[in-house]
């Protein structure tokens, strides 16, 4: 993605760093700071030129210090940190330029340092320009890589934000639905218990009726207050006979209550056939007491 960098940058002071897709970054005399979480300084060519001027003024990169450069440049917001790293890069850039260029090497040195012996100003300028160019290329390359990297990071971060939001939503939705299911289970359980309560009520009513001896067929002297189980059986029979649909209430009630032995509430020994579902049939003889 970096291959589209042009081999030379126009030195006519045209603005900005050019990207492979042709867009330009605007440049002005102020610092261009990036907008990502860690604001970093963009070394535009304008800024860099001022830097080079300052360095030259101060006698070359080896003589200039970040502090003095800062003062010389007089650009607001520029910190020693920025300058330190840029100066280091500049020095390194100069090194590589030195090695790559042959003739211009001595000349460029001369151009930067003060002990200039050569008087051929035009070749000086050319050499300086070349060196500057190649330095600018390196710088531009680095800058572009940096910006690309940061853009990439920003994109990635934005992507992460989006995915995270979706994931949070998924989890929230799931927790909500499992909570609802659990609540429903409580409700169902409550209904079951309510049914049980209702059955109990009926049974106690029946017990009252029975104990008040209103049924003629009963041998009241031998009557005992029927147990819950006995009454439950009666209720169950009633339920079954009236063909009520068996709710969830019916089964747990009958199942648990039928564990007790039937004692023959209806003392006439009438055989009640019930609870076949539970596989249980009462004995025909009644045994009261």
């Amino acid at each position, binding site marked *: 993605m970096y291959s589209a960098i042009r081999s030379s940058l126009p030195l006519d002071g045209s603005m900005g760093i050019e990207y492979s897709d042709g867009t330009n970054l605007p440049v002005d005399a102020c610092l261009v700071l990036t907008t990502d979480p860690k604001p970093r300084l963009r070394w535009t060519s304008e800024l860099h030129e001022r830097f080079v001027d300052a360095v030259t003024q101060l006698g070359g990169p080896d003589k200039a210090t970040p502090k003095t450069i800062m003062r010389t440049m007089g650009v607001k917001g520029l910190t020693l940190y920025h300058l330190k790293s840029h100066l280091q890069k500049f020095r390194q850039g100069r090194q590589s330029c030195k090695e790559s260029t042959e003739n211009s090497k001595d000349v460029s040195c001369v151009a930067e340092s003060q002990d200039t012996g050569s008087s051929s100003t035009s070749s000086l300028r050319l050499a300086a320009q070349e060196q500057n160019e190649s330095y600018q290329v390196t710088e531009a390359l680095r800058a572009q890589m940096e910006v690309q990297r940061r853009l990439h990071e920003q994109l990635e971060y934005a992507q992460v934000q989006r*995915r995270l939001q979706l994931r949070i939503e998924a989890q929230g939705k799931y927790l909500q639905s499992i909570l609802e299911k659990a609540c429903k289970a409580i409700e169902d359980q409550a209904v079951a218990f309510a049914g049980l309560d209702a059955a109990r009520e009926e049974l106690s009513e029946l017990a009252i009726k029975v104990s008040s001896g209103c049924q003629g067929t009963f041998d009241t002297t031998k009557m005992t207050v029927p147990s819950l189980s006995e009454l439950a059986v009666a209720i169950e029979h009633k339920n079954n006979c009236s063909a009520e649909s068996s709710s969830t209430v019916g089964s747990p009630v009958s199942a648990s209550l039928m564990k007790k032995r039937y004692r023959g509430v209806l003392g006439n020994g009438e055989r009640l056939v019930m609870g076949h579902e539970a596989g249980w049939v009462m004995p025909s003889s009644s045994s009261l007491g």
Partner: protein
Amino acid sequence: MKVQASSPQDNQPSNTTNNTNSTDNTTNQLPSMDEHVMRSMDWDSIMKELELDDDSTPNPLKTEFTTTESAIGPLYAVDSNLPGFPDQIQPSDFDSSDVYPGQNQTSGYAFNSLDSVDNGGFDFIEDLIRVVDCVESDELQLAQVILSRLNQRLRSPTGRPLQRAAFYFKEALGSLLTGSNRNQTRLLSSWTEIVQKIRAVKEFSGISPIPLFSHFTANQAILDSLSSQQSSSPFVHVVDFDIGFGGQYASLMREIAEKSISSGFLRVTAVVAEECAVETRLVKENLTQFAAEMKIRFQIEFVLAKTFEMLSFKAIRFVDGERTVVLISPAIFRRLSGIGDFVNNLRRVSPKVVIFVDGEGWTEIAGAGSFRREFVAALEFYTMVLESLDAAAPPGDLVKKIVEAFVLRPKIAAAVETAADRRNAGEMTWREAFCGAGMRSIQLSQFAVFQAECLLEKAQVRGFHVAKRQEELVLCWHGRALVATSAWRF
């Protein structure tokens, strides 16, 4: 325990020196407390070495240990921008146990007499440790005596994080003692309990980044291990030792569905405790339904923890050609009698990735050496968790109480039980076991890191931050690791 009568304007650094002075004083009166415990209870120096980011941020934990003559009034210049620390700002919020009369006396604690007058302060910490010591030395009667005194002192989970943590730890010690007297069969949860638990998890996830960090980092590690493949998307099988209510799989399924990872197929084997039978059914129903909605082919099986203890990985069904992912949390290490064996058996199933999520401070706690040290380390850890909960929770007590009662308290109880059960004493740490078996850590991806940071941004609770510690991605609270996630392979 440190006591100091420092004036409220003291800065933190000078507090430390005051602390050491009073420590010397109090040490003389504590023949029974050994130096190490005192040092491990030196919250201030612990805080210092944790490099608190912002020195001007008052550490609420510190306020527990520093008192003034008047004992009322803000102890530090409070950064009023901090959300969630109302206790520090309004002195009227101090409950009565925060008033420490007579604290400036050097003989504030009558350590030597068991029936000391309640001078306030942190004698409850000493008593807690005494109980722990008694349990260790099998003096259960004495432990009960001290515990009943503690029950008077710590009646309810109110007040500062440390006090609430102390309450829960006291409760845990209590059930430890009664549990040792009779065989306690674990009961199935009732539906009401289950609803409360789910609600607590939901609330917790909504206010604190802790639960989501655990889940999402683990999920990302899973996704990363799956996506680093060629075009074929082999099926994934996750072995999960701590499934909870299964919330983690909701977001994993979403990713699988959207990115066609694993060819839209997910199989989970969850190792569960038998007392979780009701939850298990609920989880199965819900995950199955969710998967159907996401149009994912999904299978889930459950294996009893007891079975796993006996058969290890042979209790789990593996299918050729599947990519196995193993999710571990400290919960499983509790139940195992040998972590070395576990890791060896783990190797035999050739997992693609093993993800370890330590949300219980296990790395610090286990291997501390003795019941007492583990207890103290756990107390410290959960105090931090409660602190972070205080910072994250909305005003009012309700949400905190729910989260504490149904999420944190069970964990504390389990931690105390494990610490007391010394069967794994002298064992190597999990890291030693992993490395010893030749496992290597996998660097968690940039996506995982960004995700964690993003999560913190959303959570908007100051005090949390994300850090990398060796191979782990760690969620920290004021420099203290609360959740540490790492990925490993053979």
